[in-house]
């Protein structure tokens, strides 16, 4: 192929600025969505563990709905349909405060929360009941048994799937470009249509995504090793 690579026309100061701001938004989106997702996931997992029928059922519906609809459709729904359902004042506030970013963050967080709550739940279920019984027979009450014995073990067991979902969350932030959030994929396309240096700019962007993904995988591995219980 007679294609001459020319990275210099892509890596000018202006375009490097665009790429950096893209990475910044991608990371902000990842961090914001992760925190929201984790909080919701913990609440969902706790609700599901209560054995209170309506709560369990509600959590199950939440999880199934968010796992069986494409994330893009959820993002589009939040962006196009949700503002119509919100009160006027909220809508104005959203429009004034970068609604794309906020709505994309909520959509991605809700979807990830469904997966994370399942990870936490399977961690809880994997702790043998005898651990709970042993705790109780030592004289701990329900809350003490849960917080000192069951939950710490459950969290350790759910570290690997949580790391996996964090990586997926990071990659899924690219979907936010569909509603015009200026994250890395969006900026890449902008530079592409500015310079027509398609291969160069996509190579750079892919490299950036890979580096960030590998950092997440590496940190995830460290955490997994730190918290692994050993095989028994």
């Amino acid at each position, binding site marked *: 192929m007679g294609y001459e690579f020319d990275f210099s026309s892509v890596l000018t100061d202006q375009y490097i600025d665009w790429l950096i701001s893209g990475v910044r938004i991608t990371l902000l989106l990842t961090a914001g969505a992760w925190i929201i997702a984790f909080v919701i996931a913990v609440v969902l997992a706790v609700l599901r563990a209560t054995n209170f029928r309506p709560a369990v059922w509600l959590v199950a519906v939440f999880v199934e709905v968010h796992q*069986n609809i*494409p994330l*893009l459709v959820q993002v589009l*729904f939040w962006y196009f349909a949700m503002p119509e359902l919100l009160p006027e004042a909220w809508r104005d506030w959203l429009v004034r405060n970068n609604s794309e970013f906020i709505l994309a963050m909520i959509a991605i967080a809700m979807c990830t929360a469904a997966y994370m709550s399942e990870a936490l739940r399977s961690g809880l279920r994997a702790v043998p009941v005898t651990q709970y019984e042993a705790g109780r027979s030592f004289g701990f009450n329900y809350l003490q048994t849960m917080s000192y014995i069951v939950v710490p073990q459950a969290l350790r067991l759910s570290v690997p799937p949580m790391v996996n979902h964090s990586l997926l969350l990071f990659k899924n932030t690219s979907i936010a470009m569909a509603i015009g959030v200026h994250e890395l994929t969006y900026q890449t396309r902008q530079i592409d249509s500015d310079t027509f240096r398609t291969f160069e700019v996509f190579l750079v*962007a892919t490299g950036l995504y890979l580096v960030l993904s590998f950092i997440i995988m590496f940190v995830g591995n460290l955490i997994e090793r730190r918290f692994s219980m050993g095989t028994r």
Partner: protein
Amino acid sequence: MLEIVQNNWTLLLVGQYPAGPLGGIVATLLLAIAGLALAFPFAILLAVARLSPYRWVNWPATAVVNIVRGMPFLMVIFWSYFALPILIGRPLSGFWTLVGALVLYESAYLAEIIRAGIQALPRGQEEAARSLGFGYFRTLTFVILPQALYNSLPALIGQFVSLIKETSLGYVISVNEFTYAASQLNSQLLVRPVEVFSILAITYFIVCFALTQSARWVEQRIARTRQGKSSGMQIQTNPLATEPMP
């Protein structure tokens, strides 16, 4: 909402099909099926290569899997969009561009599922086949893969659901599929986004939920069959024991 479906069900079902390109939910399903079917052979090769004891075989396979796992699917779609026509030397329709992206991306994920299936088999299976005189490839094709693929069937159905969900990203490069059809409908009707996107979400939900439920059913069935098999094996092995039990 019903009246929108009544007036536009052909667009949502098959797109502009007889007059134009196939679209709608039918195209979404065809995309997912084509992607899965074409990714499968590559996935098996990758899985087997990753388990190879030779470093020059398993190292490149591991690298491919990790690189693909580190890329957002949208990036893979754009690569397929720009690079595939150049690689094969002629323009490609949106449908096959998306299939190309799905094959590349899903090969890596399917490979991990198949690898896990192979690793979950007891080592005795391979040892038995080898000691019966089977070579490496015959052991793989007649003993290991049939069992590994059967056992990973639930995970494979789950991955098919992922494929269906991933085809929605074809929307970004204007591939005629279900999400694209709905967004066309949305810009036609203009003032009814809640209804249009609800129809879109509900339809995806019905299709994907039915499949995930069937995956769960298959999983239970497989678990039951395996239990039956293992108890059957015990009965068979006892009469063959030559050593008297202590």
